[in-house]
């Protein structure tokens, strides 16, 4: 067996962590040296991640590829779902890294080192095949997230970081309980507990404790901001430093969904029974209620933070419909949207920060007419906005449309409720664009420009945004890049859940949604 790709994978995960260690240890390293070093740490995975996705061969025979020893017993390997996610993470990481390198902060080396840790941890989440290893890497990435938000965050960082820490730790604890019970119930030896083996064990298990599915769903759902466990996300992302928002909202958050798919959906029947009904309604609330909340936002970064919560809704629904009515396309599309959302959401956070750097504020009513001064920034921001509201050509489109199509056998009004995101997201996103960039320049902006003239987007940030948008366009035009590795995973999971599922849940009577 060819060990070369496995080496690449191991290198992609360890490189940022090692560089991060060096930067943390060498707080006094000279600036230029540290910058170059850190850039290496960000760039190595960004080259290797997409490369590994391209190397991914027809996986129907092997669910796991590129296996290696890893460290602490957590072997490295990719599966069909994690390969694209790892590639996406590496690109988001590079963009976030470039953003971090352009920032002037106190304790720069520590800052960069912690972000590298975050990146390494996130890559580890998707690059490990051991269930507890996945969890470990998630925590490994989460701790720097808190520290970075607490010390380098913006306005309101203390309460936001605390809230984030409490929510995410609680969510992680609940999901850990679920994971451990699942491993126990599957009868798989702890040391050999990979997603595949545990799922296989659970599928053949005689009895699974009833609460396991709920623990996994709501624990991991909290990490992915499932309604009503989403309250941490908006203030957290708003307060966190931009590279952290990019990495967390773009990549690390996807761990919750990743786990729900590979553990919950594949073997715990989270879409059946009353749990499935709750799941459905929470996901719909994610789309509709959080969408409405987005409409009420008056602050650009808060709007983006809320919209990143709202965009989880369709993903949850794609997962739900895969389990509930055996539609593999729902899962395919959900996975696609996970990747695409990571790219577009990171690009938006990056560019919104560039807006703030120029206009000095995120408040929409004080912004306006920026496009005349900064045409490139405006063009890229509009592109990223269009990506996030699912314009064809960008990856998000396939994901969203795929999910709408996967819901085709549900009742019409449920479909309409979900598809209403097409309109809602257009309303808030375009309002943000119009009040930031269009119209005559606001007085505040003119004054600021007169006192401290600002230029258009710098080259480094341009490059970072182009990486993200370029990747989104690439998967938009060549969707098979993602689907070739995801299809077999989705098909496999669907086969099982169909085998397990009851009749398709015909949308329950006028239950919650409004609460």
């Amino acid at each position, binding site marked *: 067996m060819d060990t070369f790709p496995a080496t690449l994978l191991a290198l992609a995960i360890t490189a940022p962590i090692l560089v991060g260690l060096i930067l943390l240890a060498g707080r006094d390293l000279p600036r230029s040296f540290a910058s170059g070093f850190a850039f290496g740490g960000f760039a190595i995975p960004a080259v290797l991640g997409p490369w590994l996705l391209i190397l991914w061969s027809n996986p129907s025979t092997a669910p796991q590829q590129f296996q290696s020893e890893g460290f602490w017993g957590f072997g490295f390997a990719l599966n069909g779902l994690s390969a694209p996610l790892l590639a996406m993470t590496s690109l988001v990481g590079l963009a976030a890294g470039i953003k971090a390198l352009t920032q002037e902060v106190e304790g720069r080396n520590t800052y960069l080192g912690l972000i590298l840790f975050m990146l390494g941890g996130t890559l580890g989440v998707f690059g490990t095949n051991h269930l507890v290893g996945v969890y470990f890497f998630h925590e490994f990435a989460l701790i720097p997230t808190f520290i970075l938000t607490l010390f380098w965050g913006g306005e309101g960082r203390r309460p936001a970081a605390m809230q984030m820490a*409490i929510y995410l730790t609680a969510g992680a604890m609940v999901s850990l309980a679920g994971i451990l019970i699942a491993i126990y119930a599957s009868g798989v030896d702890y040391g050999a507990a990979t997603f595949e083996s545990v799922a296989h064990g659970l599928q053949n298990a005689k009895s699974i404790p009833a609460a396991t599915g709920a623990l996994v769903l709501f624990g991991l759902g909290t990490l992915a901001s499932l309604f*009503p466990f*989403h*309250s941490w996300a908006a203030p957290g992302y708003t307060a966190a430093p931009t590279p952290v928002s990019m990495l967390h909202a773009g990549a690390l958050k996807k761990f919750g969904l990743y786990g729900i798919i590979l553990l919950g959906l594949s073997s715990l029947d989270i879409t059946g029974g009353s749990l499935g009904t709750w799941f459905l309604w929470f996901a719909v609330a994610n789309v509709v*209620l959080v969408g*409405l*909340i*987005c*409409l*009420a*936002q008056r602050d650009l970064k808060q709007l983006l933070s809320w919209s990143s919560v709202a965009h989880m809704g369709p993903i949850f629904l794609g997962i739900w419909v895969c389990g509930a009515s055996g*539609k*593999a*396309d*729902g*899962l*395919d*599309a959900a996975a696609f949207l996970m990747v695409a959302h990571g790219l577009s959401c990171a690009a938006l956070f990056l560019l919104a920060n560039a807006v703030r750097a120029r206009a000095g504020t995120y408040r929409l009513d004080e912004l306006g*007419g920026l*496009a*005349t001064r900064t045409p490139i920034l405006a*063009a890229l921001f*509009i592109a990223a906005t269009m990506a996030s509201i*699912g*314009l*064809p*050509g960008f990856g998000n*489109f*396939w994901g969203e*449309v*795929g999910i*709408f*199509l*996967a819901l*085709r*056998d549900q009742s*019409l009004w449920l*479909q*309409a409720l979900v*598809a*209403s995101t*097409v*309109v809602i997201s*257009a*309303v808030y996103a*375009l309002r943000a664009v*119009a009040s930031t960039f*269009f*119209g*005559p*320049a606001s007085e505040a902006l003119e004054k600021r420009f007169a006192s401290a003239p600002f230029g258009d987007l710098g080259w480094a940030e341009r490059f970072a945004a182009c990486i993200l948008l370029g990747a989104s366009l690439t998967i938009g035009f*060549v*969707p*098979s890049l*993602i*689907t*070739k590795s995801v*299809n077999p995973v989705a098909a496999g999971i*669907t086969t099982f859940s169909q085998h397990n599922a009851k009749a398709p849940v015909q949308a329950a009577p006028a239950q919650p949604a409004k*609460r």
Partner: protein
Amino acid sequence: MPSDLSSLVHWILFLPLGAAVLSALFLRRAGGLAAWLSTGTAFVIAGLSLLLLGKGVDVSWHVELAKFGDVSLGFGYLIDANARLMLFVVSFVAAWIHLFSVGYMKEDSARGRFFAGLSIFMFSILGIVVADNLLMTFIYWELVGFSSYMLIAHYFDKDYAAAASKKAFIVNRVGDLGFILGIAMCLSLYGTLDFVALKDHAAAAKTIPVAVGALLMCGFLGKSAQFPLHVWLTDAMAGPTPVSALIHAATMVAAGVYFMARVSFLLAPDVLNLIAISGAGMAALAGLCALAQTDIKKSLAYSTLAHLGIMGCAIGLGHPELALMHMAMHAFFKATLFLGAGSVIHGCHHEQDMLKMGGLLKKMPLTAATFIAATLSNCAVPFLAGWYSKDAIIEAAYHGHHFVIFAFLSLAALATCLYSGRMIRLVFLGEANSEEASHAHESPWTMTLPLVVLGLVYSVAGGFLASTLMPAGSLQPIKPALDAIVFHLTAPSTIVGLFSLVVGFFGALKFYGTVRGADALQVVSPRTYHLLEHRWMDGLYRWYVDAVQRRLAEFVAFLDLLIINGVAVRWIGGGVPAVLGYLTGRSFHRGQTRAYALWIVVGTLFLAWFLIAR
């Protein structure tokens, strides 16, 4: 050879995309180069489309991009007679509009962006024409919405342009919401999105569910600006005039008509009736509203709405071929009208108020001649382009015994003549009513040449050309209807048409000559005028957005803050320890190391009990 022709379609489709990418990335500062690149591409496409039309061969080509589960995401072409006709009309009109833009946008600083926008628009609209399945159509459909958004927002530093672009996009998305649901329903019912396969399924099925057609129709309502989603079209005049010509005359609005014709086999009779009635009603209403607009472009926009209503009506009456024919004729003369308006605006130093114009016939003879020719075609003067198609539709309504529709269409015909006469009278006849108009000058050749080509050749002789020169296949289905009109001058439609023309057109010429510097109708009957200004629909939507949607959003946000974040989380977070603390007589959190140690012990014991007892 089919492979040859599919590569021809590749070129038609991807040339404009390439031009757009090139202009957007590299020619931002070289506006002149971008302009000629884009225009050159447009003419090449027009030539290729003509070639395709001449060959008269169907093309079908398909490749699978990816699979989601069992759903195939396919990319392909399906070129039939309708598609060839549409390709030709769109690319031909668009090519001349490009050329016009070269002159019109000469002084604009953002020409690179503008022409990139035109090219991406071309790509999307041609995509709709050639697409072979519903999903691809939806993709181009969305892209059309996006490119029109960018083009309407060309003068983005003006508040009205920013608002209009947003409105256009969002209203279109409301239509798309129904469209995507319709696509999902097709997939659910028939398991395919491919037009050919869908047609087979529809033919095999006894009845088509009403919902399929009704949902697909939503897309048409948005894109073709049909009632009640027509509100964006008049605001979209905020874009540069060539954009208005391209979007509102030739292409974007026609896309909806074309699409309805393409999926006409999926429309149940109830849906058709609905389209017919609402189309006819809108034709009459919009025609009358055009009487109360002082902005020349807005008046033309209402005229477009009226014609779109007529096309919708033709589809509803079960004559999609007639709708397409009217779409083609309308594209020619309305593009001429818009470009003529652009030339007038350009000549009058960007004055758009018709009441401030006047007497331009002498100052801008070429523009005036073409504009008047196109207007006459618009009024359906016999043997001009508009006459063939419009009268055929009115005739179809009469023959189908849809007398309500017939009445509405007749009213629309009368209104058309009225506003046309008014426009001619106010703009070209009489004397100049403002400084700008008295110093008007004729436009450069890049602007007048398209006018001459489009206006004189096609709007005057278009119908003749269409009925004689075009390959038989493309017009075969409507041949009988055409013959019926041409050879029966006593047909009801002809009577209606001639009556409207005489009474409406000449009446308007006379009526609007009575008052100078103001609108005669406004002077005579201010209340009628105000009603026709058509503000109430916008008012209704504004009320919805301000009073309903925004309040709902704020209410939900408040509830989220109060209930989930405030009560639930804070209560659990703060309440549970408080209660426990009350029970144990002391707070958990007092910094006492020993208390913490005690709780660790209690917890450990509890866990041990839990594990052993189970």
